[in-house]
């Protein structure tokens, strides 16, 4: 079974600075998808960014980018020019390409990001 580990329960960043959230995962599969989800205080979870395992190029979405190291099984999220609205719980998630039926996600335990003035 796959596992996802987020070793930083809480992180803080100053507004306009850059912060990196860590995520590692364990799998024996070669084809899979990785996701970062954001859960603001209002609780609606939204997708931040996704990465296909067979793509070597790191995904980027505006101020959000990932550092995907397949051999190390690492998938960190970098937030540049942090804004107050980035304050949220961030979850890393894994999905196997081999899973039959459903597209199940395996989530990490989350990192609470605080943005300070």
């Amino acid at each position, binding site marked *: 079974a796959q596992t996802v580990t987020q070793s930083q329960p809480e992180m803080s960043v100053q507004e306009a600075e850059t912060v990196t959230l860590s995520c590692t995962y364990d799998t024996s599969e070669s084809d899979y998808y990785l996701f970062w*989800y954001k859960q603001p205080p209002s609780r609606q*979870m939204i997708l931040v960014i996704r990465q296909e395992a067979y793509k070597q190029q790191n995904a980027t979405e505006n101020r959000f980018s990932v550092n995907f190291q397949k051999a190390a099984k690492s998938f960190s999220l970098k937030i540049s020019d942090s804004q107050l609205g980035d304050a949220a719980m961030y979850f890393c998630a894994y999905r196997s390409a081999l899973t039959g039926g459903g597209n*199940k996600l395996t989530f990490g335990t989350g990192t609470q990001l605080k943005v300070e003035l």
Partner: protein
Amino acid sequence: DVKVTQSSRYLVKRTGEKVFLECVQDMDHENMFWYRQDPGLGLRLIYFSYDVKMKEKGDIPEGYSVSREKKERFSLILESASTNQTSMYLCASSETGYRNEQFFGPGTRLTVL
């Protein structure tokens, strides 16, 4: 925009009661999911459904059942609520295909007294 709605934001029930949590999605998604979210444990999958009347157990199905009679609606049932089922419950839906993201509802905070 995809919308996933859940019947209640907050719910308080008593031990032993039968509890229904309802989830509706409006994008004709094949897959629907129920997760439980607890501090320090992240999201854990309770059940999912990949088609009407089809269901599969997730990682923590004990004490729960589900129903999917219509494509847009997925219900989570606590047959006899217990205090250890006090939690945040999140519903999600997605199209088939492992590239596709899951869209989440706002969550239901259930307290069992």
